[in-house]
């Protein structure tokens, strides 16, 4: 089973990620077990899926946090996708899910982010990291989570900006 980084440790990835459908999202067969479905599938099949406790959703970089909004805490897990690592929209989406919609569950980066983004992603509220690249060395990558341990500005991990904490 593939692994990922969650809360700073390497664990088994027990969730299956369903790719975006090319056809009608209502027609996608969502298997049993822990699955993370694309937003379009969730929207199309919400009536059936919302009765399940083992269904999460993932947002592509052009899908905004508001599309889940107040429903965020319905999900045990939400994914934010990086189509490419230079597409930084997920940083804002993650913060909005945590800070505006109070999401408490697992917030997972998926896709093509890179190790060197882990610290900033953690600061924005992401607590799980599933690299699309199967070659990613998680043992080494986990070190980047703590590239910094002091920060100027407020974020999810430290809501008080330095100017409110400076001795």
């Amino acid at each position: 089973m593939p692994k990922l980084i969650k809360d700073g440790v390497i664990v088994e990835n027990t969730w299956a990620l369903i790719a975006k459908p090319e056809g009608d999202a209502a027609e996608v067969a969502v298997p049993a077990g822990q699955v993370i479905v694309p937003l379009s599938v969730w929207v199309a099949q919400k009536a059936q899926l919302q009765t399940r406790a083992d269904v999460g959703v993932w947002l592509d970089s052009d899908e905004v946090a508001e599309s889940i909004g107040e429903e965020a805490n319905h999900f045990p897990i939400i994914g934010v996708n990086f189509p490419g690592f230079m597409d930084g929209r997920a940083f804002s989406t993650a913060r909005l899910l945590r800070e505006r919609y109070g999401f408490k569950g697992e917030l997972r980066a998926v896709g093509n982010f890179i190790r060197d983004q882990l610290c900033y992603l953690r600061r924005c509220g992401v607590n799980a990291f599933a690299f699309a690249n199967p070659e990613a060395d998680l043992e080494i990558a986990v070190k980047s989570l703590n590239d910094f341990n002091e920060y100027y500005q407020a974020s999810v991990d430290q809501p008080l900006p330095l100017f409110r904490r400076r001795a």
Partner: protein
Amino acid sequence: MYIYDEYDNSILRQRVAQFRDQTERFLAGDLPPEQFLPLRLQNGLYVQRLAPMLRINVPYGMVNSVQIRKLAHIARHYDKGYCHVSTRQNIQYNWPDLTEVPDILSELADVGMHGTQSSGNCIRNTTSDQFAGVAEDEIIDPRPYCEIIRQWSSFHPEFAFLPRKFKIAVTGSEKDRAAVQVHDIGLQLILKDSGEIGFKVYVGGGLGRTPVIGSVIREFLPEEDLLSYLEAILRVYNLSGRRDNKYKARIKILVRAVTPEVFAQKVEAEWEHMKDGYSKLTRAEIERAKGFFTEPAYETIDNAAAQAGVDAQAADSIAFSKWLQRNVRGHRVAGYAAVTLSLKPTGVAPGDITDGQLEIIADLADEFSFGEARTTHEQNIVLADVKKSDLFALWQKCKVAGFATPNIGTITDIICCPGGDFCSLANAKSIPIAEAIQRQFEDLDYVYDLGDIDLNISGCMNACGHHHVGHIGILGVDKSGKEFYQVQLGGSASNDASLGDVLGPSFGAEVMPEVIQKLVNVYVENRTDEELFIDTYRRIGAAPFKERVYAKAN
């Protein structure tokens, strides 16, 4: 000026360690070039035509003598003995060795300097007025706010992978010397009659291939809301700015696409959620920041006596009086003056400075200006707090060091990007054009008679030389492998900001001095007594200039 404390130092040290690790992984082949690219850019490192280029931030242009000596040391030990003052007040090294960059950054961190976010798709160094704190027309000193912005924007976790680069400028004077209307965000400090301090907020200005004057999205933003409002603007941009085309990714394109009114509404809606959060500035933090920019230990000086002394020296020396006229300006404190050291002598690339000259500037700063200096976006150096009674002695030392060229604000004080001699983006060389024009205008009395003329040169449409806002702007273009130069007239980066109009077909390098001479001749023949070049152009329009330069000899 601002002094790093243990927090600043600790954060910067972690950054240096992070980049050293990234560089080592790249050199070992563990970090692919396409992933290393944005990481090195966000530490100031470009790969240029001939070698890497390392850009070091000078936050809002403020630098002290200890830092200047370190910059000299870096130039001498890691580079070829010189560096370059950029058009965004930063310092650039043109010949560092990639493997030594972590060591350079470590040495710079010793004096609180770095290249963090000096490049890449992130929030860049905040720029400001080189006469901040001393200008006679200043309403509020912008530097404390610049420092607050510096801290907020440094290592901001949400905004390190924006659609494109992002530049903020702040001004606090009646006359805008920071060109705030051509920045992604421009902030103009406002003091209300009630004593309340805040900002007029411009957004979506910029140069580059699509030059735009910024739009006002808020007439008055209370000072304590500065960071939350900036965060709201950046978030709207991060989520909505275009990412499909790098040439359409700047915030100006987004603002124009949705209209400034709609953009302002989006920002206000976002800000509603955030404005009363922890990022709201406290009185204590604003006061703390202001505490770093208090007055140095000015002496109480009889201004009339000091001025009489200077006048007497000027009466004995025409050269000194010319320098006073162009390179020295008033100061809000009696008996003091602000002095600009010209980095634009003919024959030296505009803004270039040697290691030895840097050390002389450090010495001059220590001797004459409380140990501080400023870089300017016009690519000169300012000593902001010089006693009038010291001006003659300072001038003599400047002459020896090569800083006394009395040309500030004139046609030979050219803003010029490094161009095709160094930059891999450039379509054409810019430095030789600047030199040829300087040689055309070597008669100082004639140059003074012409008065203030902003002549700006960019080697490509990325516009690092700010050609759109020069009274005379020159843009290098490539036509089937040959270098040509397009001329624009009527630009301004001041309060009356405007973008220049393209005059017509471009010219070969060899005729450029002659073309500029003809343009100047049209001005001289048409001006009224009070008019500067830009005024005459605005009054008579482009036609007489076009006729002159495109007239056929036969």
